């Protein structure tokens, strides 16, 4: 069951259609409603390994639908603390709940100041409107 379009105000966004939910030194990362809608039903999530270092603007994993494979771009730099096993097992979780149960990784922030460079919901909606 696909979710309806939304871009929550409490998240930060990256123009490559990724979101971050920052909580102190940690953040959850995922892909936006727009990204999952463009891909269609996800059939595979290729996660990074726990302990991997990821860099802002670079790919850290892959999501695959029946028609395409897409890199997942890191909105923030950091170290992978946890991979969402539920999405590994049931990738369609991302389609059903992209901002909740469909998160992809939890990271420890490498540089908290990067958060300021991300887009807020209104700015990201402009990106979506222009896509």
């Amino acid at each position: 069951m696909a979710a309806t379009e939304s871009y929550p105000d409490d998240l930060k966004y990256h123009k490559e259609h990724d979101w971050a939910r920052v909580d102190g030194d940690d953040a959850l990362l995922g892909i936006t409603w727009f990204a999952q809608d463009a891909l269609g039903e996800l059939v595979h999530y290729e996660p990074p390994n726990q302990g991997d270092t990821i860099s802002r603007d670079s790919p850290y994993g892959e999501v695959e639908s029946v028609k395409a494979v897409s890199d997942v771009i890191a909105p923030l730099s950091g170290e992978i603390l946890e991979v969402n096993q539920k999405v590994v097992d049931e990738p369609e979780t991302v389609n059903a709940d992209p901002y909740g149960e469909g998160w992809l990784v939890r990271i420890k922030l490498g540089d908290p100041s990067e958060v300021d460079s991300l887009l807020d919901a209104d700015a990201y909606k402009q990106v979506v409107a222009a896509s």
Partner: protein
Amino acid sequence: MSYLSLTERDRDEMLATIGVSSVDELFRDIPAGVRFDRELDLGPPLHEQELSRHLEELAARNVDTTRELSFLGAGIYDHYVPAVVDAVLQRGELLTAYTPYQPEMSQGVLQAIFEYQTAICELTGMEVSNASGYDGTTVGADACFVAKHATGRKKVVITEATSPQVRQVVKTYAPGFGLDVVEVPHRDGVTSPDDLRRASSDAACVIFQQPNFFGCLEPAPDLAAAAKDAEAIPVAHVDLLSLGLLEAPGAYGCGMAIGEGQSAGNYQSFAGPHYGFLAARGEYIRRMPGRIVGETLDAAGERGYVLTLQTREQHIRREKATSNITTNQTLLALAGLVYLSWLGPQGLREVGETCMALGEYAKRRLIDAGAELVFPEQTTFKEFAVRVGRSATEAIRDARGRGVHPGYALGRDYPGLDDAVLVALTERRTTQDVDCLVEALAPR
């Protein structure tokens, strides 16, 4: 398109159209020093009948194993191809089938490929097979690529007793993949598990051949275990025709099984084209190169077949594809399927036993005639190396003059084995043929 050459008038019209006065002017940017400055020495034109005769004369200079006696193997073997193989292959729907992108148009060939994949999986003990690869060498490079991505490691290990052609292709691809290749020497014709274990640290995969290039049986389960000790993926390069007798690679822990499919259902055809096979454990399915056919249900709930997991392929994944080769050798692989289906498990076993028994007979005859085996301690399948007491290339040349091709000169690839010939025995050879072999190779 028919072949019609240009007339002078055609040329003049084309030159006039682009505003160039002569063909020479057209090529004036090419420096004179690198231009060919005379007419090709082709002789006078031939009319059709003369040309036919000329080509027939050239073709008649080819020899094949129906006219001369061959013990050549070294990866490409003279096994019998039953008539049923050609009969099935020459059906139009298989012979002229294009890539089956449209499942609604292509159920026949898709089902045939699916059955091919199933046969390869059953024989190798693996969970997934692709629809075939180019040949037994490129699948070696493919396996390295899969292993690199699965492990994140940048080194591959390959045993020196693996086919020199496979090693050469792996070494050709490796720099482009960002891989280093380490080769492990053999000891008396086989690979030492301890040597392999030492070489395998930080390796993505370990490729060994079973039976190896010398025809010898490797301690394959120990080699696979040695690779796994180093967390490298064990990859066995196997001969389908050996798998009626020998254990399946999946049963001794390999992560992938690859090989040249020619011996099953393809003629030697002057060494190609043939087909390669690549099968793997399920965990590598999304990293497998090439296409894969899957079984599914259509909208009406009927069983159907369709290309699947295409997101791995280059037309979708672009530069991140698992291979730049998605073309495969469907027709030749289907010959393999027909062959394997025709023989069945018992037939495959009997072919293997026949080859092995004839090989043992030939060894004994050669020893009785004073020849010495290169690796007398080893068990061999259908091929073995024998010393001929003189230059192997000379012995081979002399025998060829009498219409006998006694084997492959190992000195080409292995220094120190200049007096050794690799001899292959298939079920097409007879004990009388072995008499000719002994005459050709016995020391003088």
